[in-house]
């Protein structure tokens, strides 16, 4: 994909353990993140999200495969694009005994970024008032916001955020969501890993779901939500039994569940249901497509037994 800002091809990462074992963290991952928008990177704990991010940022050397960031090979030419990439990896690691401002100033000077930018990002994440305090006195949420501020300092084209809402309260989570959407609307690409599926569903344009180091689904959020599912209409009416019989007689696949009828039809064909029922003197009180949450899809996909159950090779 020409417009891809992040590409991962056949990425495999095995960690060698001290006592001779090996842990397979990422197992042949292929992924492409297009330019612009918010890309959600999902997976349960230990799925390999952070390892993938570390490979993308050159912190970890892949066992096999390659990663490119802004079309630069990470292994060979990361330095040529790093000034266009802002990132947080896990909990932001900053000097605990330095103030938030000093931490940002030290980073900004690495690339000759002025103090004005430090003040601007501190304002942007709402930390201007506490910028003079030592980072060790910050709450987890404040550290997270300082990490986001550090990631924004470079005015990056691509933001890679590993669990940016980790430790934030609901208001903080909403702030991060709004910030991410705002950054995306400015034309930046935001690659965000998260466990908070409801947030991802609201925030992301595309997602990739990782399970046991492998990609199990990727695409636009709507595509992933409908992946392998037949669309269902939920129909409520007073005469459930009669309605069910009428719909089945008309050749529709229908069932009764929890005080409503489930009809296997796309939402665009809802009129067919009302027509059949109305022609028999029954009138619907509610007709809506069944909503599938990302959480349902995520759980369904990530709880599937993996072809390689022997994940941890000893």
């Amino acid at each position, binding site marked *: 994909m020409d417009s891809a800002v992040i590409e991962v091809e056949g990425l495999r990462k095995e*960690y060698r353990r001290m006592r001779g074992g090996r842990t397979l963290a990422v197992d042949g991952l292929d992924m492409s993140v297009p330019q612009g928008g918010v890309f959600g990177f999902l997976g349960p704990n230990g799925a390999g999200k952070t390892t993938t991010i*570390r490979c993308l*940022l*050159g*912190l*970890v*050397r892949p066992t096999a495969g390659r990663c490119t960031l802004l079309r630069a090979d990470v292994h060979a030419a*990361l*330095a040529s694009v*790093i000034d266009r*990439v802002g*990132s947080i*990896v896990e*909990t*932001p*690691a*900053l*000097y*605990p*005994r*330095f103030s938030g401002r*000093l931490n940002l100033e*030290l*980073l900004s*000077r*690495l*690339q*000759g970024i002025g103090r004005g930018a430090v003040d601007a990002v501190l304002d942007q994440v709402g930390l201007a008032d506490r910028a003079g305090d030592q980072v060790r006195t910050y709450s987890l949420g404040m550290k997270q916001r300082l990490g986001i501020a*550090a990631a924004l300092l*470079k005015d990056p084209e691509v933001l890679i955020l590993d669990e940016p809402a980790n430790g934030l309260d609901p208001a903080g989570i909403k702030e991060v969501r709004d910030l991410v959407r705002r950054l995306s609307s400015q034309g930046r690409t935001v690659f965000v890993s998260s466990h908070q599926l409801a947030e991802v569903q609201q925030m992301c344009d595309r997602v990739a779901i990782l399970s046991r180091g492998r990609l199990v689904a990727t695409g636009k959020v709507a595509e992933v939500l409908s992946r392998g599912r037949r669309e269902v209409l939920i129909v409520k009416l007073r005469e459930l039994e009669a309605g069910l019989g009428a719909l089945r007689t008309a050749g529709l696949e229908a069932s009764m569940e929890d005080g409503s009828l489930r009809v296997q039809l796309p939402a665009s064909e809802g009129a067919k249901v009302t027509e059949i029922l109305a022609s028999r003197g029954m009138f619907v009180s509610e007709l809506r497509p069944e909503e599938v949450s990302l959480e349902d899809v995520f759980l369904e996909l990530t709880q599937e037994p993996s072809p390689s159950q022997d994940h941890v090779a000893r």
Partner: protein
Amino acid sequence: MSNLLRVEFRRLLSRRIVRFAGAVVLLGLLIAGLVLFVRSHRLDAASAARLQAKEEAKYEQAIASCSAGDFGIPPSDVPKGETMQQFCQEIVQPPSIPNPAFHLTQYRAVAEGLSGLLIALLTVLGATSAGAEWHSGTVTTQLTWEPRRTRLLVAKVAVAGVFAFVAFFAVEALLFGVLAPAALFRGSTNGIDAGWFAGTGVILLRAAAVAAMGAAIGHTLAWLARNTAVAVGAALGYAAVVEPLLRAARPKWEPWFLVSNAVRFITAHPLDFTTQARSTTGAGILLAAYTVGAVVVSLAVFRRRDVT
């Protein structure tokens, strides 16, 4: 690279342990200077004569006591042909008049004495500088700004070394500054001339170079171990246990030992108990080679190992 060096300097100077160590050293020097100033005083001729007479009287009294048998020396211990008084004159120390005036020429010995302590302190500071980075996880953050690991580590080691060199000189200069008033106003500056300054300067220059190399080695060890305690333990263990044991077991290896060569390089004299030693220049070159070797090993490992 210059941005990286500036940032590293700023980070190092902002560290609490550096400021704390600086404050402790400064306070210690000021106290030492004050105590010396109070205790040092010049003797006039009358006082010197009075002191001389007092010391001589003490000496005569000690000889008399010894000859009278108060020291409990059995007559069989007295060599044949000598009287007890002659023997006592041999064993009782002749009088020496303590000179309470501080001579500024003594600064060189004091500075050399302080060098060992400073080198050890700066080696530990170099190690903590690296260990703290791994402990707080900031290496990860820095690599997301400067992914070229060679540049990053070389800058850090260079800053640790330069800082140690400058800090060493600053402390020794400060030492001179706090000792000088005692010599100027209540002691003596005899023998202080351009030659003395040049000789002292060369010794301090070599000692500062050893401090810089110590800090660089401390830094690379901690970077390698990703931990301060391991690096300090290894350095201390080597200096206090491994090298003395090797010296006893393999005296022929003496020209290769780190501490022996450091002493040799600073003082331009071999250790008292050494039988084989390099030249001063040879010792310096060997120390530099060890430092470069440590950096190269640390760099090779850093380039290969994952940062997790």
